[in-house]
């Protein structure tokens, strides 16, 4: 195997892992800080994509449409938390089923509002060359975006008052209550941030995955498995799981077939759960 092919494969597999991580991180935050599996995560991603798309169509530059998408998804996320999630707190499987119902409703609403096909914005026609191979530039850029998202969440959790409250309420719930942290408000914020991150992902991935009502379902299954394999440690756990599963699947697909890549993803998920029944990060001392 030529060196340039190998380099191309490694670089683009890292990009694939980053794309998975971008799509996953909001889910991981909500799971890590609230213990809630949000099955409507994919639909928030879709809402983010449509928000960015609609804003762009109104003539606003694409880069400015991303914050708009984040704000819209955060607002919808907060409403969903207050109306539904809050009432089911502590009932993890009921929450899963309720969010699944929400995802069905959002999907159909998107079909009603946007129809089934909407013009996409396309991928920036920028590429670069490694030996004989040329690579699209935008997906490679996602490696940097994923790193930035990680840094942002790390900052949010460790350096802000909200972050400390959120971590306190999941690690020491009784103590947190005793010192007057209102866990309901913290949870609304956490869920909104998780949905905002999904909206960000939908907006930033829009050039790669065109906006369709069903785009969420494509991501959510793998994102969901990544989070569970990662276990309780939100940031490092998800990053490691995304690189291992997403990157591994992409490398497998490059050398074998795309189906082998998919099978790799599912089989490694099963194997890791067998070896680490509570997720790979269950016994780590590092908590971020």
């Amino acid at each position, binding site marked *: 195997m030529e060196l340039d*092919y190998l380099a*191309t*494969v490694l670089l*683009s*597999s890292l*990009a*694939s892992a980053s*794309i998975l991580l971008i799509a996953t991180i909001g889910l991981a935050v909500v799971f890590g800080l609230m213990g809630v599996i949000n099955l409507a995560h994919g639909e928030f991603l879709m809402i983010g994509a449509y928000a960015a798309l609609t804003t762009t169509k109104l003539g606003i530059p694409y880069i400015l449409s991303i914050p708009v998408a984040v704000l819209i998804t955060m607002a919808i996320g907060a409403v969903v938390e207050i109306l539904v999630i809050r009432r089911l707190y502590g009932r993890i499987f009921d929450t899963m089923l309720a969010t699944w119902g929400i995802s069905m409703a959002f999907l*159909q609403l998107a*079909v009603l509002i946007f*129809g*089934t*096909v*909407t*013009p*996409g*914005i*396309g*991928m*920036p*026609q*920028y*590429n670069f060359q490694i030996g*004989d*191979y*040329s*690579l*699209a*530039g*935008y*997906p490679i850029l996602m490696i940097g975006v994923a790193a930035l998202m990680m840094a942002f969440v790390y900052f949010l959790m460790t350096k802000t008052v909200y972050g400390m409250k959120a971590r306190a309420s999941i690690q020491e719930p009784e103590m947190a209550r005793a010192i007057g942290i209102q866990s309901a408000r913290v949870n609304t914020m956490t869920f909104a941030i998780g949905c905002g991150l999904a909206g960000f992902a939908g907006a930033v991935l829009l*050039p*790669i*995955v*065109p906006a*369709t*009502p*069903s*785009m969420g379902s*494509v*991501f959510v*299954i793998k994102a969901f498995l990544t989070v569970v394999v990662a276990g309780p440690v939100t940031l490092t756990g998800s990053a490691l799981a995304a690189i291992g599963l*997403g990157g591994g*699947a*992409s490398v497998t*697909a*490059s050398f074998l*077939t*795309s*189906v082998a*890549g*998919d099978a790799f993803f599912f089989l490694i998920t099963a194997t890791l759960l067998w070896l680490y029944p509570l997720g790979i990060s269950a016994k780590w001392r590092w908590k971020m």
Partner: protein
Amino acid sequence: MKKSLVSIGVAITVALSAQFAHAETKIGAIFDLTGGLNIYGIQQNNALQLAVENINANGGVLGEPIEVVTYDAQSELSKYTQFANTALLRDHIDALFAGLTSSSREAIRPIVRKGNVPYFYASLYEGGACDKQTFVTGSTASQQLSVLIEWAVNKYGKKIYIMAPDYNFGTISAHWIHEYAKQNGAEVVGEDFLSLAVTDYAPTIQKIQASKPDFVVALPVGANQTGFLEQFSAAGLKDKIGLVSTNYGSGNQQVVVSPAAGEGLITNQGYFMHVDNPTNAKFVELWTAKYGNDTPIVSVAVDTWNAVNLWAAAVNKAGKADAGDVIAALESGLTFDAPNGTVTLEPGSHHLRQNIYIVEGDDNHGFKTVETFTDVIPSYEREKCDLIANPTLAKHFTPDDK
């Protein structure tokens, strides 16, 4: 006695409430009006309603208007089974128009066979469905690929790469690409089958570059897989390697794909909205008057339009709506002046001889015609499936290997 009184009562109520009180014929329509596949299902259903309205306005069949019963399959396969039985057992329809995916057709076929009701499948597909009750108005993979591969080999060169979805449509299409490559002295230098949930196209893009083809036959399914086309173009491959498809555009993917990526892509099907002939002009006018012109009309819509009109012609020819007579009339070599040119229903194979258009994506989410092939024969179905000589045949033929 009591029971018959009740049923008379029911019959009267039904008769009074029905829009056409003396409907002689009744057809069933099962399409995906909601869920992931409604991008096709809504257009199929619109085309069917439009065709029925048009026929009824012109005197109906057997001098009476046609009545339609509509069901929403919700993009779920089990609903096809359920509603096909509903249509046959409860609503006693005379003909069924249903289905988009191959699996939906396969779910319906045993039911219509048992109930002996003519069934029209109006969608492009991998080919090979064969039984007495089933009539296919879409083009088949071999029908489209026979002309496309020859054209592309002449245009781009002899090295082919296949990117196909990993299920029957993809694997059987791949078989035909191999077959026609051989016939045209070309070779397949690489192939990759993608599961429907794939969003990561980087491996495929690299494999394409590694095997250095002259052109790629890409068969992306649904809007999600159009991401492949974006990435192909963004990686700068579009200028070096040709890209042709048989299903790009069948679900208006050209609307989703950005002009930068969509311009110059080659695709071929039995119908495109811009096809230039008087029948199509009239059809497009009727359509836009009723449904507006937000979304371009796709080929499955015209396939459905053709199916309803062929059935109506057959009933009028037979003089009654009984299954046996209608099937016999359908097997009499009917032709129809369709929006996509004249189509002929082959008596033996129950497939259509029809035009195939090779088109090229323009810079404004549309297509322009490159070449038209008239009256293309569904050769594989004609070879395998002769329902005149062998009326009890009930099979789904697949070429042996992939």
